[in-house]
């Protein structure tokens, strides 16, 4: 069963990569989001979240769903992962590498932070404190030290949280504090594993 799921995931990731042009999963979603009606933007931002608040509201009947979609479009409220589509010609490239080494290449707008970007694209990144720099769950590792140096220095508050991050490195940052700018075009960040591997030492003196 796990094999099948794994296969499905691989396929989902492999196809957009194999295809040239802009038919990338994440990009295509972005593409939709700014070429169709606003309610879809919201729906799409939520699409990978299996139990979004929006879905719950839609649940009772299709009729209600239709009316809900209208009110939804008015506010376009998205709890997490709300990002702005980049203006044509102003896209900034960012690549997330997950714990299996799978790369997800995205084109994003200036001003969005990595946590919101990751969540809007269903990447495995938690933001337990909602992006307020009060936890370490959106820890990312910047691949290129030069790119790390280009970023603004992490604040004391961010460093305080990073101190508690699992698998801290010299180029670690909190996703919620990295705000995309033109200088960061081509940024590659790694997502550390969210579960731990068992160590033999876990069994010492037990």
């Amino acid at each position, binding site marked *: 069963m796990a094999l099948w799921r794994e296969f499905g995931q691989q396929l989902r990731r492999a196809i957009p990569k194999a295809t040239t042009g802009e038919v990338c999963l994440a990009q295509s979603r972005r593409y939709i989001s700014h070429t169709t009606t606003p309610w879809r933007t919201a729906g799409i931002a939520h699409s990978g979240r299996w139990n979004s608040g929006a879905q719950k509201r839609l*649940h009772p009947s299709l009729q209600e769903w239709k009316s809900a979609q209208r009110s939804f479009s008015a506010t376009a409220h998205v709890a997490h992962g709300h990002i702005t589509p980049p203006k044509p010609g102003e896209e900034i490239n960012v690549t997330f590498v997950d714990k299996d080494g799978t790369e997800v290449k995205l084109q994003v707008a200036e001003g969005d932070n990595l946590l919101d970007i990751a969540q809007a694209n269903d990447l495995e990144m938690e933001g337990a404190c909602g992006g*307020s720099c009060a936890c370490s769950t959106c820890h990312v590792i910047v691949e290129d030290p030069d790119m790390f140096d280009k970023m603004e220095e992490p604040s004391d508050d961010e460093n305080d949280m990073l101190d508690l991050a699992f698998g801290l490195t010299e180029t670690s940052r909190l996703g919620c504090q990295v705000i995309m700018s033109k200088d960061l075009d081509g940024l590659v960040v790694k997502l550390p594993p*969210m579960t*731990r591997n068992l160590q033999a030492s876990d069994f010492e003196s037990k």
Partner: protein
Amino acid sequence: MLDRAFVCAQCTARLTHRSVFRIKTPFYSASRRLSSNATPDRPVRVAIVGSGPAGFYAASRLLSKQQNAMVDMYEKLPVPFGLARYGVAPDHPEVKNCEEKFTEVATSPRFNFVGNIDLGHDLPLTALKPHYDAILFAYGASQDKELGIPGEKSARNVHSARAFVGWYNGLPEHRDLEPDLTSGEDAVIVGQGNVALDVARILLTDVDALRSTDIADYALEALSKSRIKRVRVVGRRGPLQASFTIKELRELLQLPSVAFDPIPKDVFPPEDVVDALPRAQKRLMQLLGKGSANDPQTSTKSWSLDFLLSPDSLHSSPVHPYNLFQARFSCNQLDPANPHSPSSKVTPKCLPDGKAAMVNLNASVFFRSVGYKSLPLPGLDDIGIRFDDQRGVIPNDGFGRVRSPSSPSNMGERQKLPDGSLITHLAGLYCAGWVKRGPTGVIASTMTDAFTTADSIMQDLANYNGSSSLLHAPGHSSGLGWDGVKAEAERRGLRPTSWKDWQRIDAVERERGKQKGKIRDKMGRVEEMLEVID
């Protein structure tokens, strides 16, 4: 419905499937083909005991990755969120943001909240077991460690920090704690973890800064009358062994008009030792060395970290025999051979005449904060679990599978560990959070831990081959979940609360809070909560 021309085939499938159509289909039909052999035509039923961060993060992982999983979450209180609601300090609202994620988890049609049921007391675990494929214990640490010193039980105004935290956070259990903050100016806290610093911060913070938080009203009133001006946070060992984290320390050091006593040079590690420390400890020591910028002359309150003191006894005032007056400590010294190693042990300090060195600290209120402790849930034995009383955890393999007390045994499957040893598991039983690894770490560590356990459950489901497994044999579980347990709960006259009930309580609390200019006004008693929903 969707303009397919704009969307690649996969995206269309994803979008239609996930956000629109799946709602109309039964929750498991879409993924039935992916389900494990163990449960070919019914959902996998998981009971989670406890609704704190560990329970919710495990539920989140299970529901998002195992499409045929259905989770029933049992909670002792009528309301969810455990320590996120009752442990996180009221002036840390951003840490409570994780509740938003938990609320999102709870909106899944495959999630069911069963509150107001104290498993083990109200309802035996044996009533649950036949109806679930897996039971995950995530009930945390319900007690705290005691010091075991004279006066701890008898002297008035001696509290556990845990109870004090519960008290100011509106936890019904500690609603009536009534700490007296008016009998003197000195507070002593024993223990140097984050809970100790939380207590210190609440005592030292200007009460007006807390008014808009969700702190309990009665606590706000007591704090506004507080005469406490001086807080000592006392530890048995040195600065390098203190277990608080830097964020909590920085906050205290930045409190307006609160001074901090510089740490004496003789206990503080020298610069070259600090420089050689790993990053987190180094930054912590550097901040400690820097101290606070506030001038003691102009500050209204002050605090200190007092090192190398072990609590010895508590003494009442000779004038007012019921009032706490002094806390007596015996002095320790760092290992002379290796004084500044993080693992350095301390030994009692002796005076030249051979007597133990002692020191008295004034204390009108005293808090012990030397760690939380998990207790065994009554009836764990009945389902084969032997709680580890010494470590205060459910014995497990580190991945969250509960270990069998006897080995080898016919109750579970043996598993080979990385170090080559074999251990035996109890089929279908798991644990996560503090009851799994002990009461340490922040929410992020509990999240990692809960995800690991959830992954173990899914791995065991996937590897199930029909006969030998870490799960039960087929037919073991009725697969009914709460539907199977409900009748027994009703027979016992229990009044379970649903997620809807919580939403009602939540709405009332927020509304009451709004009227008082607070985020929320928590209900301090279980009866009050039940009144609102009945």
